[in-house]
């Protein structure tokens, strides 16, 4: 998958590396801004209270 992606990209190795780094930055930003907060809403927060059964 990643090997195929590497071969599909044009240019010398450093251009491909730059493109991949930019893509990784975009994915990371999207995760932090939207995906992680969205996933977090589905996770039941840990109980910190004491309560009867």
């Amino acid at each position, binding site marked *: *998958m*990643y*090997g*195929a992606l590497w*071969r599909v990209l044009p240019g010398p190795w450093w251009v491909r590396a730059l493109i991949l780094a930019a893509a990784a930055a975009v994915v*990371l930003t999207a*995760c*932090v801004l939207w995906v*992680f*907060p969205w*996933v*977090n809403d589905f996770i*039941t*927060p*840990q*109980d*910190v*209270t*004491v*309560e*009867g*059964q």
Partner: protein
Amino acid sequence: MVLVDGRVARRRAERRSRVTFVGVLGEVFITAGVLVLLFLGWQVWLNDIVVGGQQKNQAIEQSQTWSKGEASAPAPAVRPDPGPPIVMASAPADDVQFANLIIPRFGSDYTRPILEGVAVHGALADGIGHYPGTQMPGDVGNVALAGHRTGWGAPLGDIGNLMVGDSIYLETEDGWYKYIFRTFAYVMPTGVDVLAAVPQNPEAAPTDRILTLTSCNPKTTAAERIIAYSIFDTWYPRAGGPPPELAPEVAAAAAAG
């Protein structure tokens, strides 16, 4: 022979570059694993910093609203007895902020909003929660609060660092109520007696003013609860200025705001 070698080499190259189902599956798994690790790092570290900062700003903003027009000079170290503390008549509606929790041990600028109720998607998501039915700050009995130790801003992330004698302040519209940390206790999640007006003694009539913080224990798990008991020391009416220990932070916040 040269011809055969060339063919073998070409076949090897093809095998290496061929995208196989198992290969893609492995890469998908590795990617998923990296994303899960990133999420965990975000949840327990990066997001706590961001959300903790938001909670702190909310507390500072509320404090400034309360302080508007009041003296910002610190209360003198020696002062006349302020008398019995003013106590709020009743708790506000659920998830409404009515106080701030200030613990210098957690950092000189540590302040977090206290909201009514302990709903996980309500008060506890926005700061510290106040157990409904327990006393209000300064009252005889038990002010019981809960907060996250990891995640959701982790307002009580450092609860385990409290040391006997540490001051803990509850700030309300009326002023600052100073409590002194006394001891930890560890109970099971069903140990509701820590919330009693006299902790662990639900039948007794209260005479002391107690502050009880609850959070999860051990850190990052929810198997038990850590309980931090503090006892009322004194209070600082808002008109008399903030407690000397908090005065630099109050002045800095006023200058920034």
